């Protein structure tokens, strides 16, 4: 177990416990009332996701300062500003990733921010720290904030100074008192290698002051240069550069109107301009976009401007102005413009470097189709799908995909175009372990399954000569049908594990009228149904 909430900590759980033990500790021995089983939520640790989340939160921190770092990697010479204050907040609401490597500082749980010159906006450092605290605790994180003269010290205080008993109070080390704070902290605060911490505590060197009293040369001989380096880092003895999150380079175009505009044609024209601007911007940067967001601000009431957002997704990323405008306009036709528009924004999201298709010498459209058949959507098709999706909404454009289910009505699934691959992927399982597949790969030829199934099986009256035998005569659409030929039965028995298990004997029948039907007898009660008509 990598991380746990405060509730489970008070229940006796500690990170590092095997999950089963944690569960036993929290829920009691098996048998102590089953209802509490659901009381514990277990989420798989995902360091990648943690990092992503942390980066997301880091961008939120731009509210407080533009210099925010999630990776404490120390590449010198990157940051040039004077460091006078650092803030670090610890995020433990998510499962913090595996104890990363040997440097506790590299665990994806901390934001380091350089607040130099920002604190006056919030009164003082304490005020800023409090605001930060509110920002994240308000959003469900358990957070500890500390301000100190260097990232190392701030990290140390945030991680180790819980003896105050009030972890929710932001801790601020006043200038020049960093080392005084540090000396009182346990050596874990120095973010040393775990093995070094273990050895030191065996030697009863448990607090930072004890360690600092030892001769540096002796420490180096025993615990290596690295340990000294980490001590210095924690004490802010060298300027640790912060690798800050890069501020995005937005591809945005916007227009504010001097007075509210309500005429659709004007707005349409303005929007077109903006899309063109964005497309130019993309071209200039050599990028393509997956998604355009149009934001419309209207002034319904004086005090509260209202934002409306339209998102246009693309199947294939693009930068072409006409193409983008076509999609946007299709969508804007579908929408109603709000009244009293005061501002328009167009924003390209999902901006990526275009993947260039391989150049061939004599590339023709047909050749392209042939080679990518089934792989990438054909180009023309992509255009069509994009247009349809813009017009009808993304969920409206789908295609059927065969799935691994024997029950005919669930053997087909409608999937949004462009997503089929992911569905097929999830159906496949990696590698079969035994040589033979136990089930047969089904093959449904044109004659074994009707092209169209009815909405659901419909009960019919059937006459069969023998109880288990084929149908002879049946009534369908209030007409008597006589069976002249039949094929079957094809037996489908499945779904015993679910409520809707089926056990059916299917027959393909040809009637005297020359029509073909797909019938089945429900095993168990011998009732008959029509399930499809061959056309």
């Amino acid at each position, binding site marked *: 177990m990598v991380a746990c909430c405060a509730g489970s900590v008070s*229940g006796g759980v500690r990170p590092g416990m095997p999950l*089963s*033990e944690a569960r*036993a*500790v929290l829920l*009691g*021995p*098996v*048998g*102590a*009332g*089953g209802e509490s*089983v659901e009381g*514990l939520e*277990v989420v798989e640790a995902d360091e990648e996701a943690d990092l992503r989340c942390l980066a997301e939160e880091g961008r939120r921190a731009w509210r407080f300062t533009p210099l925010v770092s999630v990776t404490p990697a120390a590449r010198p010479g990157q940051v040039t500003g004077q460091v006078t204050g650092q803030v670090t907040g610890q995020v433990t609401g998510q499962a913090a990733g595996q104890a990363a490597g040997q440097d506790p500082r590299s665990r994806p749980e901390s934001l380091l921010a350089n607040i130099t010159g920002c604190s006056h906006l919030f009164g003082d450092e304490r005020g800023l720290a409090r605001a930060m605290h509110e920002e994240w605790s308000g959003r469900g994180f358990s957070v500890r904030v500390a301000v100190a003269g260097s990232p190392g010290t701030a990290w140390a205080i945030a991680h*180790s100074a819980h*003896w105050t008993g009030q972890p929710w109070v932001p801790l601020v080390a006043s200038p020049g008192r960093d080392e005084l704070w540090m000396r009182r902290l*346990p050596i874990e605060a120095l973010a040393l290698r775990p093995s070094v911490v273990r*050895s030191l*505590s*065996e*030697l*009863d060197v*448990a607090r930072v002051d*004890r360690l600092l009293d030892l*001769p540096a*040369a*002796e420490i180096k*001989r*025993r*615990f*290596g240069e690295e340990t000294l380096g980490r001590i210095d880092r924690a004490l802010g003895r060298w300027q640790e550069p912060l690798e800050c999150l890069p501020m995005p380079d937005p591809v945005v175009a916007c227009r504010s109107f001097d007075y509210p505009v309500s005429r659709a044609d004007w707005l349409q024209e303005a929007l077109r301009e903006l899309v063109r601007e964005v497309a130019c911007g993309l071209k200039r940067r050599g990028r393509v976009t997956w998604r355009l967001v149009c934001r419309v601000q209207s002034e319904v009431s004086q005090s509260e401007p209202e934002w409306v957002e339209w998102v246009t997704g693309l199947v294939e990323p693009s930068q072409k102005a006409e193409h983008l405008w076509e999609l946007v306009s299709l969508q804007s036709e579908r929408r109603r413009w709000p009244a009293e528009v005061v501002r328009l924004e167009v924003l390209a999201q999902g901006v990526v470097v275009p993947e260039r298709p391989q150049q061939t010498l004599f590339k023709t459209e047909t050749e392209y189709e042939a080679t990518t058949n089934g792989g990438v959507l054909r180009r023309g098709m992509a255009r069509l799908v994009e247009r349809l999706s813009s017009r009808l909404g993304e969920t409206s454009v789908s295609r059927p995909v065969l*799935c*691994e289910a*024997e029950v005919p009505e669930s053997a087909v699934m409608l999937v949004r175009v462009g997503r089929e691959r992911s569905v097929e992927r999830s159906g496949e*399982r990696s590698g*079969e*372990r*035994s*040589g*033979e597949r*136990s*089930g*047969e*790969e*089904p*093959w449904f*030829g044109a*004659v*074994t399954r009707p092209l169209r199934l009815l909405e659901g099986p419909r009960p019919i009256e059937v006459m069969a000569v023998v109880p288990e035998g084929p149908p002879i005569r049946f009534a369908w659409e209030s007409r008597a049908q006589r069976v002249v030929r039949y*094929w*079957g*039965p*094809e*037996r489908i*028995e*499945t779904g*015993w*594990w679910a409520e809707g298990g089926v056990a059916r*004997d299917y027959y393909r029948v040809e009637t005297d009228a020359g029509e073909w039907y797909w019938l089945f007898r429900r095993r168990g009660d011998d009732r008959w149904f029509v399930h499809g008509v061959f056309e």
Partner: protein
Amino acid sequence: MPDQNPPSRRPPVASDRSVSRSRGRGRGGGTGYVELSCRTNYSFLEAASHPDELVTRAVELGHESLAITDVNSLAGVVRAHVAARELDLDPPWNIICGARLRFEDAPPVVVWVPDRDSYAVLCRLLTTGRRRAPKGECRLWWSDLAGVGVEGGVGGGGGLLAGVLLHRLLPRGPVSREARDRALSFLERFAATFGDRGYALGGLFRGPDDVGSWRRMNAWAQDVGLPLVATSDVLYHDRSRQPLADVLSAIRQRCPVQRLGFHRQTNAERSLKRYEEMVELVGGDRQAVLRSLEVARRCRFSLDELKYEYPRELCPEGTTVGEHLGRLTWEGAAGRYPAGVPESVRRLVEHELELIAELEYEPYFLTVWDLVRFARSRGILCQGRGSAANSAVCYCLGITSVDPSRIDVLFERFVSRERDEAPDIDVDFEHERREEVLQYLYTKYGRDRAGMTGVVITYRPKSALRDVGKALGLSLDRVDRLSRMVDGVHDDERFAGRIRDAGLDPTSQLGRQLIGLVRDILGFPRHLSQHVGGMVITRGRLTELVPVENAAMEGRTVIQWDKDDLDALGILKVDCLSLGMLTVIHRCLETIGARATGQTIDEAMAAIPAEDPEVYEMISGADTVGVFQIESRAQMSMLPRLQPRCFYDLVIEVAIVRPGPIQGDMVHPYLRRRAGREEVSYPNEAIRGVLEKTLGVPIFQEQAMRLAVVAAGFTPGQADQLRRAMGAWRRPGVIEQFHGQLVEGMRGRGYDEEFAERLFRQIRGFGEYGFPESHAASFALLVYVSAWLKRYHPAAFSAALLNSQPMGFYASSQLVADARRHGVSVREVDINHSEWDCTLEGDATQRGGAGEAAGGAGVGGPELRLGLRMVRGLSEAVAERVICERERGEFGSVQEVSRRVGLGEAEMARLARADVFGSLETARRKALWDALADRSEQPLWEGEIGEDAVVLPEMGRAEEVVADYRSQGLSLRGHPFECLRHRVQRLGAVTAGELREQRHGRQLAVAGLVLLRQRPSSARGVTFVTLEDETGMANLIIKQETWERYHQAARSARALLAFGTLQNQQQVVHLLVSRLVDLSQALGQVALPSRDFR
């Protein structure tokens, strides 16, 4: 039993063995069908029926035979064969022996065995494939089958009949030309290889286009000239097993059934079918169905033809095995009884030899004798036990050491004329040297003639629930909880109850399915493993008798049959087991100077004086830490009640604390009678004969069995079946039938029903873990020997135990504490004095304080020096280097050790942490500080940094103790609780020592380190916890409610404070706990007093 099945006893049809194909096709009149492709659950996780279920069903459906064709295996055939034999049909039914061969480069093919020669070919083929692949897998190429003929001198395919599975070969619907050509060319190759021994098997399973499929299969078969035979390619005997088959697929694919998709069968058509059904299925093509009979009748091979032959090299040229065994026995007898063989023994030996000769078991006794002889010649301690072992012959041959005049031996009880059953002798060897014995067997008989017996690992409630639960899509959490709850629960009602307790409604669909499927899957084999020590030795090639495959251990091979299969076919095996206590006894005897006096280890052991009252005194006082078998907590609490006074009491002691007597509730009646509080009476003389030596209470397995015979009117054979049925508890029907018979029979003979029920439960207990008197007697001997050693040579005994860790119930710290309680002085591990092993300093042969009170047996004797092996994480190689270097002169300083031995930082730190530098007067912390220093970067001149510049905090005593525990698992300085004593005293705790003095029924508290937690399945949820403080051990009984209330502390605490009611009766002291407090934190503070931020 050779050739019990002569051709004349077969149905008349069998005589037209050479039926030509055209005639076979021409037979239109008859009806009948034989399933030729049928997997059992020995095709692990593929098929969903037991072999016997398939056989029974096939008989019901009127089939005249059944082919068992497991995937690359012959493991299921024997069970089917036995099932058919037990049904005792007329005309006798023969199982067609075969296999489904799965190739790396070709579609699967089913082969059948027509005769003994091709059986050998198939065994060889499977062995080849299995030996190439890792454990449990098989790698075969088509050329292996097509080419086996070349090696064996037979035509292609080695004389086997074969069927190609068309429904697997031919993809339905439109296929690429390439695939089609590939399939066709394989068909042609197949037809060419097998000629008129080849068939095409076609299966229809109510698919989308059966008529078309059959037409295509027919056409393809005709194209290559193979006769088409209909099959159901069976996976289960009855269609009701479809869900189970799906679950098995899901387990194999490791996904829930919902997500199996095309990995599951669309319907339940893979079951055994009637002739008429088959004909209907294939659209009236009777010929294709009838042709199965032709194949079946060509397969005349029966497993009964496998005749086991003993190896030849058992006796010298020119003598018969009988003569040789006789000579060895009488020679041995003369050695055992130097004063002349007593008349009673002589008669016994003569009688046994006669019986052995009659049953032709001489080679078996000679084989075991040879093993024992080899072990003796290498100075390996060994001892035989098992049904045939406690005979006068075995005693004379030196296989056992239980003098037949010391316990009553009735050979017929184990080896009887009526039951033609293999004798059973297990031989225990020292656990560290058993490998030598196995290697001896391999060298003597060769790898192709000796192999380990397999063990089929089957589903038990816990594993069944785990796998089925996952297959039904329960979350891992839930499966975890459920499976822990049902561990060891066998009957349905309790099972359902446990499921409910775990929060799943057993009446919901999911609950019902779960319970039903788990019940079905119980007893299903899951994989093949290696038997602990069963070896099979043959005269000819083993690989022509049974397929051999790789075991998990490198270089080990295991045969595909387990001991029951071998029994059923009359193939003998010898069990070479390993026993840690023998190692301990060996080491101990060696230390106390057995070698010096010129005795062999065996002689030294035999020379231990028998029936020493002091030893029994010690045993009766439950002072048995480290003693073989009787050191467990349950045994220890039995000892003061039983008060063993002679060897036979030990035999009973060993046998009484077992599932059998406990579940049969026989323990208390026995104790009452022994204490004279209950009258010993027998309903009749026959029963007196059975139960006299155990005061009328059945204790041993054979007593329970004999009681079934004498008191319930079972035949001996039935009694034995009863026991076996109990072992294989998956067949509730059989057990119920026996249950009725037993209870009725006993009631009819004047027993009350309650006793009959108890006897039944006892027999069921033996089914799980049988314990006959002969086992108990052999074990009791080791109990006595180890107890004697503990009593008179406590130091040597402790050293031997410590050097054999891990074994037994106790950790090193308890063993050392126990030694010290017995007056042995123990010295700490020291870099200048310790060897790798724990050794004795002073005169090791000295008993020390013998004759004093039991508490001081070791006083004045040799001292025990702990060895470097006690240091956690230290490798033996490093220790060897240290010891080697030390021989050139003792070390003078920590730096010297590191420099002279050339040890790295990690090893030095390990030694420093274990505080082994005592003789250098360097304390742990200082040593560690020194050890951590990087030696490659010595300061240029020593004075540059004065080492005394570093002042490390001194360690307190408590800290030292905890550090000792951490680095060695024990401390000679004291016990962690000494430092906590004042604290726990304030909390109201008394010491474990004081506990003994307190009155029964008092409310008390006790605190200590948690030594072990135990929850035996027979204890109805009660947990036993043992605590240790500085004065000794205290036993806690925690009832389920209490456990649950304090589960956090109860489950995980390293130290506990327990409040409760004292139970102090007959010197057995327990605390029935009502409240628990976790003291782990307190212990942590002792460890690291300054780390107050934790």
